[in-house]
């Protein structure tokens, strides 16, 4: 099966600080891939590079054959690749429902909006149906009419996932989706993401929570100082020497209590 996302030879440096060096990996359709690594290992930069927020110095990023490395963030979204941010900021003067409707970009032209053309009304109707469905799926129903900025940190994360899903992406990249999220909500999030995955959505998840990674991911990519040091299944993480070295330093033994 041809890969959904293919990253080859991607490198990025800020001055003399080489944040990513020759990154190669791929994500197959239907896969859930976790990206882990210590702080400063380049996880977020990799995510920013793929989503077009950070231009890469060299290398190629292909989404089903379409090169993304010189595309703008909004072009990349239109190719079916969505993302969320580590600290999602939400608007103060818009309700959760409005933010969700704004997250579908179909038919937002000036004239079609002002005149209320048929295409515009159809886009609005479809957007509403999708938004109502996502409110239920991501447990945001009871805050539907609240100001989006007034949500809790965890709810903002859920809302940013819901926003990313409004456009029906093929690949969704999540940046630390569970940081600051209540454990119960975390369990629901795993179930929701699994359900979406069964419907055909591929996921790439940057995360520190090993339980979350173990419960959800098919495969893990371990980054350390800008290099991929291991690619393995979540079960193999705690016995992989490169992973232990990245997290605990050279010469580390397998801990008596497993990482996960």
């Amino acid at each position, binding site marked *: 099966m041809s890969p959904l996302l293919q990253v080859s030879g991607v490198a990025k440096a800020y001055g003399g600080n080489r944040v990513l060096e020759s990154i190669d990996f791929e994500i197959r359709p239907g896969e859930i891939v976790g990206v882990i690594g210590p702080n400063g290992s380049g996880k977020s930069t990799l995510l920013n590079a793929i989503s077009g927020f950070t231009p890469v110095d060299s290398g190629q990023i292909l989404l089903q054959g379409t090169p993304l490395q010189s595309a703008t*963030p909004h072009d990349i979204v239109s190719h079916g690749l969505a993302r969320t*941010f580590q600290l999602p900021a*939400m608007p103060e003067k818009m309700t959760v429902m409005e933010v969700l409707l704004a997250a579908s*970009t179909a038919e937002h032209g*000036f004239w079609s909006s002002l005149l209320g053309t048929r295409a515009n009304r159809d886009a609005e109707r479809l957007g509403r149906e999708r938004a109502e469905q996502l409110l239920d799926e991501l447990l945001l129903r009871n805050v539907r*009419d609240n100001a989006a900025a007034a949500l809790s940190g965890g709810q903002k994360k859920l809302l940013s996932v819901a926003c990313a899903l409004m456009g029906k992406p093929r690949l969704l990249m999540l940046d630390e989706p569970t940081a600051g999220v209540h454990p119960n909500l975390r369990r629901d999030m795993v179930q929701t993401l699994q359900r979406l995955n069964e419907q055909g959505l591929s996921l790439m998840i940057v995360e520190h929570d090993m339980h979350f990674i173990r419960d959800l991911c098919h495969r893990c990519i371990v980054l350390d100082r800008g290099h991929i040091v291991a690619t393995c299944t979540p079960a193999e993480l705690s016995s992989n020497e490169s992973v232990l070295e990245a997290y605990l330093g050279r010469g580390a033994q397998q801990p008596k209590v497993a990482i996960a």
Partner: protein
Amino acid sequence: MFEFCLHVLTLACIYGLIALALNLQAGYTGLLNFGHIAFVGIGAYAVGIGHLAGWPLLPSILIGLGAAMVLAWLVARLGRNLASDYWGIATLAVAEILRIIALNQDAWTGGAQGISALPSLFATASSSAQDLYFALTLMVLVGLFAWLSLRLAASRFGRALRLLREQPQLASCLGYNLLTLKSRALMVSAALAALGGSMLASYTSYVSPDYLLAAQTFLVWSMLMIGGLGSVGGVLLGTLLVQCAYSFVPFAKDYLAIGSDVAGALRLGLVGLILLGCLLWRSGGLLPERLRIMP
């Protein structure tokens, strides 16, 4: 007295159009445009220059709208890589450049003297009927554009603008082309501001570089801040309030027997006081923008 009230109302309506235009940029889209008066000036000078060239009024107004939209497109592109506050300074500079051109290009603009004896919208009617028709036309226009503003704000386009205003990074990562959105908002706003400008020139039958003073932009900004940025009702209330404060000053001048220069200062001071009071006690304006609950 009726004529005086009609005059205040007409001016309030003209500034209402200009303030509604600024609200599209500053209120909905979050663009800090400190050179808004440039679009108004283009509309006003289009009527003036059209008159000198012997064109009828309506085509002159339309040319003014077109020219303002072209300038808006350029200004949006000019600042594509600037942060919003630096872009604001650039817009101030653009308006000043236009004012200096208007002041020095005597052959086209009449220089510091300006262009006078401009045609009115209703050239054939008698003077008092003219004023009444003018006021009625402007009230209809303000009502129409206020309604369109409300409709736009609630539409898919308006929602995209408000998302851009509050969280540009989120808007971009959801797939909006921010530059296109900004240019469109700016062009629509420019056309409306130019319409306001041509109405002003036609009503006062005069245009001069003073119409392009930066202080005029800040006057319109005060109207928005007093009424409520992003709220159509607030913008219209703010405009009416500032216009009433302005018109009240000549009465105070006669009553208190003060000189013209003091009266001018009183005018600015009064607006400043209202603005200060609003900022201190009602920072969102008298009628602040509210959350839109979707049915």
